[in-house]
């Protein structure tokens, strides 16, 4: 149990997807202009990441690995995740329209995104077991959501700041992300994976 807790904290904070491994930057900078959108996106990424990691784990360990088809891993995962997202979108649209209205559009955006596909690949590469894969997925998702929400709150404040014209938009956002990464770096000695 302790081992899993450690893994969770490590993947959420010290090995944060966005701020130390630079995954999912497109979403990170695209969505973080707005706090509500960030919360929706964080939830969407966490849930899609968890479901797709479990599915990919099963496909890799019960189909690809026994048949010796590891070469097809990348193609399989991409198609699997894109298909899963489409399916989720349809199911949510039909059965939970309120939820769909809230963060349905974010689902489509993450169909082929590096942050979602990185976790299944990492799991397959290091031959992680079921529980480890599961905890890694949830931890990474929560870490992503955390970074996104923090960044959105900071950027909302930034709107009132007087920024030089050439730094406006992406420039200042990157520098802000650098500061955020620096503060996450402070945790780095705490737990190592």
């Amino acid at each position, binding site marked *: 149990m302790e081992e899993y807790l450690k893994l969770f904290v490590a993947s959420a904070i010290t090995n944060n997807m966005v*701020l*130390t*491994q*630079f*995954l*999912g*930057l*497109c979403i990170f*900078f695209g969505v973080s202009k707005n706090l509500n959108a960030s919360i929706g996106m964080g939830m969407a990424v966490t849930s899609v990441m968890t479901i797709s990691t479990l599915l990919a784990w099963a496909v890799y360990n019960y189909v690809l690995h026994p048949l010796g088809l590891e*070469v*097809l891993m*990348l*193609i399989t995962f*991409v*198609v699997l995740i*894109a298909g899963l997202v489409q399916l989720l979108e349809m199911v949510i649209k039909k059965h939970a329209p309120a939820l769909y209205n809230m963060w349905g559009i974010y689902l489509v955006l993450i169909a*082929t*995104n*590096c942050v979602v*596909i*990185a976790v299944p*690949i*990492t799991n397959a*590469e290091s031959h992680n077991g079921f529980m480890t894969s599961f905890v890694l997925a949830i931890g990474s998702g929560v870490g992503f959501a955390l970074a996104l929400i923090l960044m959105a709150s900071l950027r909302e404040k930034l709107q009132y700041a007087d920024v*030089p*014209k*050439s*730094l*406006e938009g*992406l*420039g*200042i*956002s*990157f*520098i*802000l*992300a*650098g*500061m955020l*990464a*620096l503060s996450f*770096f402070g945790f780095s000695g705490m737990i190592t994976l």
Partner: protein
Amino acid sequence: MKNLWDIFYKGLFDQNPIFRLALSLCPALAVTSNVYNALAMGLSVMFVITANNVVVSIFRKWVNPKVRVPVYITSIATIVTVLILTLQAYLPDIYKELYLYLNLIVVFAIILARAEVFAAKNPVFLSFLDGLGMGAGFAGAMVFIAIVRELLGNGTLMGIQVFGASYDPALIMILPPGGFIIIGLMIASFNLIGQHQDKLKAAKQGSDA
């Protein structure tokens, strides 16, 4: 001839994938802590984007627009798999170092964007040039970022000491936070240059009129 050159050239500066379009930023930060890795990653992306443009362009008349995105993604995934297997066989060191990010080439927005915007509508040779130009712009930007980061953060270039032993390296530049800050400053300087050029152009038009 001018037209062909323009197709190639636009990817280098005007529509530079990293600095201008801000697409596919993940590798721009993740593997630019030294020049060698950045060059390897840049060339890999250049290969994938060019090959994919050619494939998409060859099949453009047979692909139904409704299923085009899955077709493009499958094509990209196949090319990336070929690339990874090749690197694994001939350059195992690079493969080990860049493993995760090589796999992630499959979801780079810039590759899908070029297939969709250019290769799906243009003949093979033009698509090839477009891919080459965009890829070169990407690789160039990666190497440029890596040179700055390695020089400041480690005092070396491709592992060779440049500033001498007395230089005290600013370690933060090769760590993740430094990557963000450097790219932020670089995007700002690109904007500054762009604004300056626009101003010159406006002034020129004003004097012509």
